[in-house]
């Protein structure tokens, strides 16, 4: 016990020493004032790192344009380890100890949900996620439990499923096999796509769940292969997606594939091989035909010297930017006040804004004059419905030598029209 006490005291002392050190260094370099915001993202996972880097990039741009209300933004980033306990604790520490009024994250719905219900909503902190796509959030928002504090820049699974079904219909396929990642997102989208296809009289001959990290997917692939589908719809992440589709192609499955936005990655393209992806087409919520999305790609390339091909990168960029613009517009720095301004900076009739440094400066000037903004960023022009869901336009894309190329553009009207047509 004695030893224990000594080591605990020693630890506390060293933490305190560190704390004072950090305090000194930050005051030395800061501008007049600093505003803290929080981010909880899975930085210990390979695909989480670029998401965190892009979030920080958005903050840096905003700071270059003078910060929020003249204050430098300090984004405190915490890892979730994709463990709900750890993510909720990180969020709680940010909200209670750092007093952040705004929390960016998380990625997985299974982490975002307990954060929303047990941390942010009770404390009136605004939460914006880049990537949580579970339809469960819409239900919670409809019941009023999110108090209007919850937003996400990832088109809901409903939206994406509709585009997938449209792509399959437009190519005249009559028999479809589905591989879906066995998590909340994959189960949702797999179910929705199958329902849409069946509503249009297209047969779903196989609907196969893919679990992470299996040494081989031969059993799953064989099961799908038995029904001889004309086309495969794959709602998978790059690692498992590569493994499954390599096995699929090597066993003689069709190379006609429709791919979810999560497979829009160089890793997947290189692992499967471009020569096998000639007949594949993907869907995504981004809107490359809009000039702003192309401008985001240019901004991103200038900073990172690579195409923004990882999942969620445009979405996290927009999530951070919209949040900061709303913070600029809000009268005070409380979560409730910031959340109330989100509609004002994503107003379709407002002044169009693209968030590069000059754009942010212009946006801040317009807000100071009391004008509203129409934010147009990496995923096109964004607008939220009353549940904090986005209704983004969509694109289809194909793989190329350089990365991906856009194939077709679906306006919001196209997507919503399709959803209405299968709903009857």
């Amino acid at each position, binding site marked *: *016990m004695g030893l*224990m006490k000594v080591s605990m005291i020693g630890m506390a002392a060293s933490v305190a020493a560190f704390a004072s050190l950090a305090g000194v260094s930050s005051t030395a370099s800061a501008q007049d004032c600093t505003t803290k915001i929080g981010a909880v993202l899975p930085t210990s996972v390979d695909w989480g790192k670029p998401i*965190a880097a892009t979030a*920080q990039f958005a903050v840096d741009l905003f700071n270059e344009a003078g910060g929020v209300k003249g204050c430098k933004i300090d984004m405190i*980033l915490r890892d979730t380890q994709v463990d709900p306990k750890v993510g909720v604790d990180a969020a709680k*520490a940010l909200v209670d100890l750092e007093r952040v009024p705004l929390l960016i994250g998380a990625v997985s719905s299974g982490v975002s*949900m307990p954060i929303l219900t047990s941390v942010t909503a009770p404390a009136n902190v605004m939460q914006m996620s880049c990537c949580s796509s579970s*339809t469960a959030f819409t239900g919670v928002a409809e019941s009023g439990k999110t108090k209007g504090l919850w937003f996400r820049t990832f088109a809901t699974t409903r939206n994406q499923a509709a585009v997938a079904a449209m792509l399959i219909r437009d190519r005249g396929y009559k028999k479809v096999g589905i591989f879906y990642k*066995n998590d909340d997102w994959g*189960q949702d989208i797999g179910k929705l796509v199958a329902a849409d296809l069946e509503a249009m009289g297209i047969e779903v001959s196989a609907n196969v769940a893919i679990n992470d990290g299996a040494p081989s997917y031969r059993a799953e692939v064989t099961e799908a292969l038995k029904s001889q589908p004309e086309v495969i719809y794959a709602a998978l992440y790059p690692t498992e997606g590569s493994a499954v589709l390599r096995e699929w192609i090597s066993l003689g499955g069709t190379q006609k594939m429709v791919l979810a936005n999560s497979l829009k990655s160089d890793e997947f393209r290189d692992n499967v091989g471009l020569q096998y992806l000639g007949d594949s087409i993907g869907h995504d919520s981004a809107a490359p035909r809009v000039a702003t999305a192309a401008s985001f790609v240019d901004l991103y390339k200038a900073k990172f010297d690579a195409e923004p091909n990882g999942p969620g990168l445009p979405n996290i960029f927009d999530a951070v930017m919209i949040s900061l613009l709303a913070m600029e517009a809000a009268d005070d720095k409380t979560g409730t006040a910031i959340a109330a301004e989100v509609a004002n900076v994503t107003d379709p009739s407002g002044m169009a804004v693209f968030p590069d440094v000059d754009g942010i400066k212009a946006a801040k000037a317009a807000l100071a004059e009391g004008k509203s903004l129409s934010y147009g960023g990496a995923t096109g022009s964004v607008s939220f419905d009353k549940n904090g869901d986005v209704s983004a336009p969509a694109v289809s894309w194909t793989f190329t030598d350089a990365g991906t190329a856009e194939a077709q553009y679906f306006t919001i009207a196209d997507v919503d029209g399709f959803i209405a047509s299968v709903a009857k």
Partner: protein
Amino acid sequence: MIGVASYLVFFVTVASILAIAVMGLNLQWGNTGLFNGGVAAFVGIGGYTTIILGGTPQVGQFGGFDLPFLIAVLGAVLAAGALAWIVGIATIRLRHDYFAIATFGVAVAFESFVRNTDRLTGGAKGLRGFERPLEGIVGDPLLYNAGFLVVTLVLLTVIYFFLYRLVQSPFGRLLRAIREDEVAATALGKNPARIRLIAFITGAMIMGLSGSLYATFYAFISPQDVLPILTFQIWAMLIVGGAGNLRGGILGAFFMWLIWTASGWALAKFAPVEAQSYAGTLQYILIGGIIVAMLLWRPQGLLPERLVVSQSNVEH
């Protein structure tokens, strides 16, 4: 200051909930020598049962029976016990390493089960909880969390004294006898398989209680909550704290959860911005390093087991 208090209340609540599970494992491993590799399943079934029994009805979802909280908790404890009974009958005669692998398999199967039974458990989306008991009446979130902490601490104390008495009793001696030398215990006319089964079920019920509090506190549970990492965390807490010592287990739970969370906090605070996206990875290395260092420095744990030789002729 209110923020610090609010966070501390939250931290102590989570650590106490984990400490209850650690005490359950201590009975199984520390006292009886049962290597339970499937802690996550017993904690998980407690959590799921609580929400299914006590939750509010939802469209297209089994459960939501809206039963009083205490009945939901009781159901959770019994469900965990029932699972342990079924698993125990099949596996309790296995030797240490085989028993560990078998129970680990049970946890993986449990996670797979809840991930795939949409109607029963919400599938991967998880189960949204109920309005937490009495939350509407209390109103203020901090006050509510403080109340929840008191309830958790009371339960922690009750379990502590229950196990303390149990281990001091002749039954506790019997557990240790089986742990140390099963053949000798059999030779003395004891039935090790039956005793081990009782210890296994009791430990699992305590884990079920922990899971019940966990799901109630977050008002949510999903398959992400019952991954093997949970089993690892509970084990690390017991080993670092001191297997066989109840107070060691509790201390280990608080200590490890502090390391787990404070390392993330410290890295977020002190690592330079450019290194921030690597902080998560660094945190894993740090946690692993601390566990290794603890094992090298004090392999018997922070508070080692204290063996008392019972002597009937000692004056009281």
